[in-house]
């Protein structure tokens, strides 16, 4: 490894947006190992730090499954922060001419998924409020996640007979919910499905133990059992 590539734990902590103590823990557990200087200080490869930040899905999944700390740059504690970062994402997308026909749809789909997290968990966050929101326009990828109550628990309020994640996701993506009492429900995920299946886009959406896969020109809902169970929601949008 090139010595110039190495940075101190303090610098790595700043870039990653996690505390020095967290980095020490991650080193001890092997989750994100450090190099050691001659004097025994922890050093980090800048390249490795960059790669770590690029794997958005792994970061979000880890946050959902293992309840790890996430870099500050991906954490939106409230809806206001999310809206501001959404606008920033749109500004970046707007600089890519090839994405012009899709830009408003990418923004709308991302907004619906993120806003759903806030709307359905308000006052009910089981532990950490807010969402993970990361994007990489060059890789055509957006990742959102929350540690909320999940689709099943949220829909049970209006459809008490639901008892599996698969059934709840099917209702969320396919069925129009009428008779909105006792909770006002939107049709955000129906909109997401419509947009994804009518445009060159893709979606992987997980809640509980079930993963939904959607892509262009395929109106059916492909579902499979996920590798890890998450309580809230995890979504990867590709375009």
């Amino acid at each position, binding site marked *: 490894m090139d010595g110039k590539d190495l940075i101190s734990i303090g610098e790595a902590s700043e870039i990653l947006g996690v505390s020095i103590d967290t980095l020490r823990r991650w080193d001890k557990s092997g989750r994100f190992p450090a190099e050691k200087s001659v004097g025994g200080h922890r050093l980090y490869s800048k390249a490795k730090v960059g790669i770590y930040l690029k794997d958005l899905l792994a970061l979000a999944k880890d946050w959902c499954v293992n309840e790890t700390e996430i870099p500050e740059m991906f954490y939106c504690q409230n*809806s206001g922060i999310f*809206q501001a970062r*959404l606008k920033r994402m*749109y500004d970046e997308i707007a600089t890519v001419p090839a994405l012009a*026909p*899709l*830009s*408003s*749809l990418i*923004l*709308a789909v991302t*907004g*619906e998924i993120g*806003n*759903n997290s*806030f*709307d359905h968990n308000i006052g009910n966050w089981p532990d950490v409020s807010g969402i993970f929101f990361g994007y990489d326009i060059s890789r055509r990828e957006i990742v959102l996640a929350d540690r909320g109550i999940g689709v099943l628990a949220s829909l049970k309020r209006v459809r008490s007979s639901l008892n599996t994640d698969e059934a709840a996701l099917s209702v969320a993506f396919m069925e*129009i919910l009428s008779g909105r009492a006792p909770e*006002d429900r*939107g*049709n*955000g995920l*129906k*909109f997401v499905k*419509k*947009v994804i299946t*009518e*445009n060159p886009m893709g979606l992987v959406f997980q809640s509980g133990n079930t993963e939904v896969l959607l892509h262009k020109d395929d109106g059916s809902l492909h579902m499979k059992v996920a590798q890890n169970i998450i309580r809230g929601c995890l979504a990867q949008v590709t375009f």
Partner: protein
Amino acid sequence: MSRPAGREAFLAFSPVLNEIKEDEPILVDFEGVVAFSPSWGAEFLVPLAKKFSNRVAFLNTENPSVKATLELLKEIGEV
């Protein structure tokens, strides 16, 4: 784009709506809209359509997200 933003917009616009004459058409112009979504629409367009029913018309709906949102809201009978 969010539900609270749509709700806030509708409340802010309510005084104007209260002054509309009985035979006056309601034109919703999407000119200059960057992106539109059902969450915002559910809080603004749906109550608007409920209040004024067939007097509401939409203009400049070419933006793909406006088009997709209106299609969905129409499909589910909300506007």
